[in-house]
């Protein structure tokens, strides 16, 4: 290998670094380190002139390694890697020392800060000397797609990709398409019919030449890696008799749209669900609305209808989170009741009215204009529903500690609608294991980044959309479905997949096949080859955490860009 020519650049970051750290001193000490041919300070290394300076030095002095002591690498590592690339040097020949966030901003004593900056820079120089050129590799991206769950989310995602020419396998455990939305009558806030929406989706899905619908089916296995998954699907015969059929397909991506399940209202005893005949859940009420008959079990039109919010949501006992759709659905009920039973009195018993969405506030206003009585109760202070006495003009009485008036009142009701919240499906754990993604404490699938990457997961090529990620309404679910589709289409458009150059590698000349590492990989990226008696890493699956590297008892696994030698060098650097 040609001899080292290291350039060291100490950023002043205006005064952010320079006001505490004596940058010139750092420059000086760095200059004396082995292999360093250039060592300079500059006002703003990340600025264009700053980067230009690196490029120039690379041209003039033939630098083959660069150290930038500046802000956190989490901030500008990509910037400077680019600079190296532009100058024709492998971007991985860069190392940054964090002398701002972890030095000048947190230390007052100039001398000590300078000493620290010096040793961090020294460590970077020693480390960069050990760096190896790394090339990003690319693999083929299979256009086909597996969508798990055929609700509004799954169908939308499937259609977007199918329209774009991908072959889509749309799998659902149920014997019908449509998921939960198929159980809904009208939708808030514009009161348009869910049925119409679904019929349009379903017919398109069924008729689409690129979509293969697999009902009564379960995904048994997903193996491989982004762009190159193999999936096995088991389909039970529709009539339930006969033997299940098993098919395998190659897909490039998987979208999980398994949705949610509704909270079991009988878990809250105060509401007498299951005991009082006219206490129904929101989904049971939807059924009435779809049938066009809003009436009590006795077949009478209810004079008083009460709606109770946050059943199972927003309380310590069951689910602390908000289920997000119930408020608007409740308002929808208020309006639908009024139109079904014009004379009815509707009371809406809520904790807070969450009307954050587009058109929601207007919807709330309209619902109050149809004379809905809104009653506020405090978290964890449940209303209590009991059977009314013979003298009362109603079936039931609901006792509420009404917080807006500080009065304890009794509301008459002939029918009570419980707005049951959403919770993760029991099989979410199973699904998570199947596609190797993680779940939060409530069982919802975890996205790769809550703000910047909401539909991707920590497993590349596996996406989540709709209610399986967290309770959400139809617009949000559809948005996620299309977002996921767009993410996948972007990759399909590129045709090839760029795989990060940083991953773990097994040195087969030293691997003894002890299989210590096999179980350790969270991404099942380590495969054991029984023939060769060696383990090897599927680089496309590897996320470079390094767990296997540290655990390999014979030092046969190397973490690219985080090799033992590089880290040893860094240790020597900070301690020299």
């Amino acid at each position, binding site marked *: 290998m040609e001899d080292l020519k290291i350039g060291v650049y100490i950023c002043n970051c205006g005064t952010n670094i320079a006001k505490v750290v004596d940058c010139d001193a750092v420059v000086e000490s760095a200059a004396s380190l082995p292999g360093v041919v250039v060592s300079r300070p500059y006002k703003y290394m990340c600025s264009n002139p700053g980067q230009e300076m690196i490029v120039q030095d690379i041209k003039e002095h033939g630098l083959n390694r660069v150290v930038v002591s500046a802000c956190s690498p989490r901030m500008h590592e990509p910037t400077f890697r680019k600079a190296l690339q532009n100058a024709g040097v492998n971007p991985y020949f860069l190392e940054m020392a964090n002398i701002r966030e972890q030095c000048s901003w947190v230390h007052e004593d100039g001398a000590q800060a300078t000493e620290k900056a010096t040793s961090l820079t020294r460590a970077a120089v020693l480390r960069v000397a050990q760096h190896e050129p790394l090339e990003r590799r690319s693999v083929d991206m299979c256009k086909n797609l597996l969508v798990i769950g055929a609700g509004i989310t799954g169908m939308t995602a499937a259609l977007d990709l199918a329209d774009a020419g991908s072959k889509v396998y749309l799998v659902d455990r149920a014997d019908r398409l449509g998921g939960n939305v198929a159980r809904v009558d009208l939708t808030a806030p514009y009161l348009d019919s869910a049925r119409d929406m679904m019929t349009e989706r379903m017919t398109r899905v069924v008729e689409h030449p690129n979509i293969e619908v697999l009902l009564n089916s379960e995904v048994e296995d997903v193996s491989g890696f982004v762009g190159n998954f193999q999936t096995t699907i088991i389909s039970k015969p529709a009539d339930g008799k006969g033997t299940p059929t098993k098919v395998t397909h190659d897909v490039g991506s998987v979208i999980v749209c398994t949705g949610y399940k509704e909270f079991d209202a009988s878990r809250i005893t105060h509401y007498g669900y299951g005991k009082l005949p006219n206490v129904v859940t929101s989904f049971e009420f939807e059924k009435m609305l779809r049938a066009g008959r809003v009436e009590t079990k006795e077949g009478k039109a209810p004079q008083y209808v009460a709606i109770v919010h946050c059943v199972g949501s927003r309380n310590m006992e069951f689910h602390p989170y908000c289920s997000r759709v119930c408020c608007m659905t409740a308002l929808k009920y208020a309006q639908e009741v009024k139109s079904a039973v014009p004379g009815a*009195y509707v009371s809406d018993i809520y904790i807070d009215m969450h009307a954050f969405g587009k058109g929601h506030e207007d919807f709330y206003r309209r619902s109050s204009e149809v004379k809905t*009585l809104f009653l506020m109760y405090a978290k964890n202070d449940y209303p209590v529903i009991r059977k009314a006495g013979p003298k009362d003009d109603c079936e039931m009485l609901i006792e509420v500690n*009404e917080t*807006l*008036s500080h009065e304890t*009142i*009794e509301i*008459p009701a002939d029918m009570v609608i419980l707005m049951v919240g959403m919770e993760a499906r029991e099989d979410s754990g199973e699904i998570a294991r199947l596609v190797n993604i993680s779940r939060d404490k409530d069982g919802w699938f975890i996205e790769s980044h809550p703000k910047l990457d909401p539909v991707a997961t920590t497993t590349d090529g596996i996406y989540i959309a709709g209610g399986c990620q967290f309770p959400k309404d139809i617009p949000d679910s559809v948005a996620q479905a299309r977002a996921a589709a767009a993410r996948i289409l972007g990759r399909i458009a590129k045709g090839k997949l760029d795989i990060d150059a940083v991953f773990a590698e097994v040195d087969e000349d030293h691997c003894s096949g002890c299989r210590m590492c096999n179980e350790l990989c969270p991404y099942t990226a380590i495969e054991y080859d029984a023939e060769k008696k060696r383990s090897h890493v599927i680089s496309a699956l590897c996320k470079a955490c390094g767990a296997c590297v540290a655990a390999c008892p014979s030092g046969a696994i190397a973490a690219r860009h985080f090799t033992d030698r590089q880290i040893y060098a860094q240790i020597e650097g900070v301690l020299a």
Partner: protein
Amino acid sequence: MAIRANLKLIEELERYGAQDVSNCYHCGNCSATCPFSSDHSIFPRREMRMLQMGLETKLESSLDPWLCYYCGECSDDCPRDAEPGETMMSLRRWLTARYDWTGISKLFYLSWKAELLAIIIVALLAGAGFLAAGFLLGGGDISVYNGENAFLPAGESWYGLPTGTGVHLFDWILAGVLVFFLSTNCMRMWWKTMGRDKSVKVPPHLYIAKIFSLPWNFMSQARYAKCDRKRPWAIHLVLMLSYVTMLVLIMFFLERMAAGPGVDWKVHVFGLLATVGLLATTIFAMRGRVKKTESQYKHSHESDWMFLILLVVVASTGFLQFALHRSGLDVAANIAYVVHMMAVVPMLLLEVPFSKWSHLAYRPLAMYFNEVREEAATAAEKSAVPLGAAQAA
């Protein structure tokens, strides 16, 4: 103990003029802008809530509606157009009906036709009565306005009756009837608002201590002056003073009022001023209600119109007969007088005790009661040993 909510109450109130009450989502802007809203009574928000929830008894025992003069700021500031001002107004109507044991108020407020019919009947009876009294009883001369054989003698002894009677006597009877109804209803008001309220223990002496507030509030409208908007207060004050002046003149100076010819300025100057005041303010109000210039004029219940129309008629006919008489057209004056009385009698007999007018009694009373209650409340707070103090000691 939980209070049973009457979800139908809101509809009942709507028939008294309440509007869009259910729009309210209790932001509290109304109470924030209202200068009268206090820690003891956070209105109109509290009333809006009680009404929405149908807490009938609580509303019935509330004095708050009377403490509001409907300057209209709350309605203007309401982000939901829930019209708290109008709600308070309709609550006053509703309360008036609740206070009234005869049920006439309720009838009037709920059916303007009934009210109108009653007014017409009483007017006709009055007209007939006066004509009869003029022609038959005294066999008076319609061409004579006052003096010995006046058509409707104001005060002199008259056909054997002692001096100081005549129409005057009728005034007093009328006043008696009015006072009877009004005072009995006021008693009921006291019972509903103070008497049965066990939450605050009111020692009787407080009633005496605070008694002065009654005439003071009545005359001065001082509280109304606290409203941010001054014009409604000014107008109300003028109207009220003119009205009272007129009342006093008629009850105590009728002879001198009627006497003529020639103008007895010492008396008539007041009469004229009052008339002008009455006409000006009522016409302003009517114009406002037609044009909906100010928020307190935006919504008009039929009872409001009756009130104004009667006032205008009374004032104008009163002035007319005065003018005719002074210009020596006694026949015309007498006719005008009868017409005048056809308006005055239903006004005093129906409107004052049973309709909008009754607030001349209820509002000052409410303020009086309110002061008494607040005094009692603060006294109670003082006497109770505060926790902090107990620990500190």
